[in-house]
């Protein structure tokens, strides 16, 4: 006969026993940062040096990761400790990636804004300008012309290829095109520039430089992006829509132009905008085939043509006597470029948000 012990036991909650409370990491982080900042502050007081808060924060973060792991190891055991360690490392990786993004954006805005707003930057070219003053109007016009022409070449070709892949393509040809489009996405931009130069040198002789050649080089980079994005969007068009159209006796090409393309136009526009945003910042191919100049050139079919990325590059690598003026213009050019890219991205997001078809969900 066994005595059943019915007296109430005062056990701790078995679900939380042996676990650290939820607020523990936060407190550990605060203590680690305080200790580190305090130590560095004392050290800077002691030898009169500068207070290095960046290094102090880094040391504090490392201290936290170590302490968090050690405490968890003592209380919760090895497996939980490793879990906490990995969690801290994963979050640290994300924070680490934000540093260059914030740092770069801040630097470009701070360094670029004064020159961008000085009145001459957006209204004049660099012709006969030595030192301060001058502007990037010739580069902005060149960028718009070259990228515009590249879009004129790439959008029809890219769109029709996507139509082929989605509506017509079967078998080896379609698979080959899909594979090569993917590979084309990875062509280094400078190789596209060299190949275009080689093509134009056949017709116009050695040393050819013209804006249109830049457009062709950019098209090589732009077409695959247009194909990929349009293809993905057109595959989302429900087959019921096509079948309804066929059932009414509409020929295939009318179905594509009147049903498939209008349904996917928002997504296609987004893709095209993003592809323009991608190529508008390309420097290397334009440096090779479009060259650089200080003067205005409205004709993309003759002579050198400046573009914004090349403007930034040349201002930075070959400063004149008043180097600071050249660097200022480079930063202002970079800011202009980022603003254009940001604008294109914003338009793309807005278009896709408001005009994408509501697919019955």
């Amino acid at each position, binding site marked *: 006969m066994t005595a059943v012990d019915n007296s109430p036991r005062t056990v701790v909650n078995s679900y939380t026993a042996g676990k650290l409370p939820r607020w523990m990491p936060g407190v550990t982080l605060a203590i680690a940062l305080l200790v580190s900042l305090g130590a560095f502050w004392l050290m800077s007081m002691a030898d009169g040096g500068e207070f290095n808060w960046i290094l102090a924060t880094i040391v504090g973060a490392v201290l936290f990761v170590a302490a968090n792991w050690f405490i968890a190891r003592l209380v919760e055991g090895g497996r939980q400790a490793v879990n906490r360690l990995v969690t801290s490392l994963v979050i640290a990786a994300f924070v680490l990636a934000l540093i260059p993004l914030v740092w770069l954006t801040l630097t470009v805005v701070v360094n670029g804004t004064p020159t961008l707003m000085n009145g001459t930057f957006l209204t004049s070219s660099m012709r006969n300008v030595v030192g301060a003053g001058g502007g990037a109007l010739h580069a902005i016009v060149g960028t718009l012309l070259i990228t515009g022409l590249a879009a004129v070449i790439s959008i029809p070709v890219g769109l029709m290829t996507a139509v082929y892949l989605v509506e017509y393509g079967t078998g080896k040809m379609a698979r080959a095109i899909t594979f090569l489009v993917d590979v084309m996405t990875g062509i*280094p931009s400078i190789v596209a520039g060299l190949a275009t130069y080689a093509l134009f040198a056949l017709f116009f002789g050695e040393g050819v430089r013209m804006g249109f050649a830049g457009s062709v080089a950019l098209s090589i980079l732009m077409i695959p992006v247009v194909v990929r994005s349009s293809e993905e969007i057109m595959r989302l068009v429900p087959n019921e829509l096509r079948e309804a159209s066929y059932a009414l006796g509409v020929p295939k090409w009318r179905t594509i132009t009147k049903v498939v393309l209008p349904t996917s136009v928002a997504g296609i526009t987004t893709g095209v905008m993003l592809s323009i*945003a991608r190529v508008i910042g390309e420097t290397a191919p334009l440096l090779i085939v479009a060259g650089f100049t200080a003067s205005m050139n409205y004709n993309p079919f003759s002579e050198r043509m400046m573009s914004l990325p090349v403007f930034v590059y040349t201002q930075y690598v070959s400063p004149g006597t008043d180097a600071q003026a050249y660097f200022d213009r480079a930063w202002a050019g970079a800011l202009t470029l980022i603003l254009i890219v940001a604008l294109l991205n914003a338009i793309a997001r807005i278009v896709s948000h408001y005009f994408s078809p509501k697919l019955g969900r």
Partner: protein
Amino acid sequence: MTAAPARITAKRRLGDTLFSGAALAAGGFILLVLAGVAIFLIAQSIPAFLIDPAEIKGQPDSFWQYVGPLVFGTVWAAALALLIAVPIALGIALFISHYAPRRLAQGLGYTIDLLAAVPSVVYGLWGAGVLAPSIQPAYVWLVDNLGWIPLFAPPVSGTGRTILTVAIVLAVMILPIITALSREVFLQTPKLHEEAALALGATRWEMIRMAVLPFGRPGVISAIMLGLGRALGETMAVAMVLSPAAVISIVLTGPQNPTTIPANIALNYPEAHGSYVNVLIATGLILFVITFAVNSAARWAIARRKDFSGAN
């Protein structure tokens, strides 16, 4: 038994013929472009192998002696960039797919994608003008304290414009592509695998190690290869940040750094003339072959995987 009815065929319309013809032509045009890129590069490269090496900048003994340091520099810089970028990119991908609060995850993904929207010339400007001077004191410390490691052998670079700075900038540039692809693959891990691991008492990290990482491995490998392809071909950031020399050296922090093929082309092309242009185009051809191989391998890995998982 009646005879099988004659197969009804649609009337051939002119519009259909034209439209499908145009679509096929556009597809064929892409094949043509890629073939054209290869053919023009090869045609313009041939003279480079025949000329007197003395015409090449720096008077090397042969074409291959000129190319050697460039190929080494290209691969070395890209490898360093991968070494920095891959752990961070995988961390970010895991953070967005398995750690961040559901509501925030997509927005955080966009934030990382913003890194891809910055033009490369702006990265170059930032790397050379801001990052290099800021990081130079760290190099001084490394060389003073760890100079016995061959990677940090003295003397230290006075400007900070070394191959390590280049690798950091390249790593930032290839982060978004590796992150985006890995994130997609991690999100496709079957929920049941994850829940089974958690139900057996695995911690979150053990669940990731047992369910997510093995499932995502092929996708991650191809993402890394695509990042490698991007790093190999990146031009302006390297051209602007690095202070180049025609050497083969593994020192990360010194003043003598091997340069990369694309940066070398960008720096020398505007002033090049005569057969030196052909030499530069020939180096471009070598770069094209390397990146083509890397990208094809990556795409092949993705395509092979697509058949059974739907991931790409």
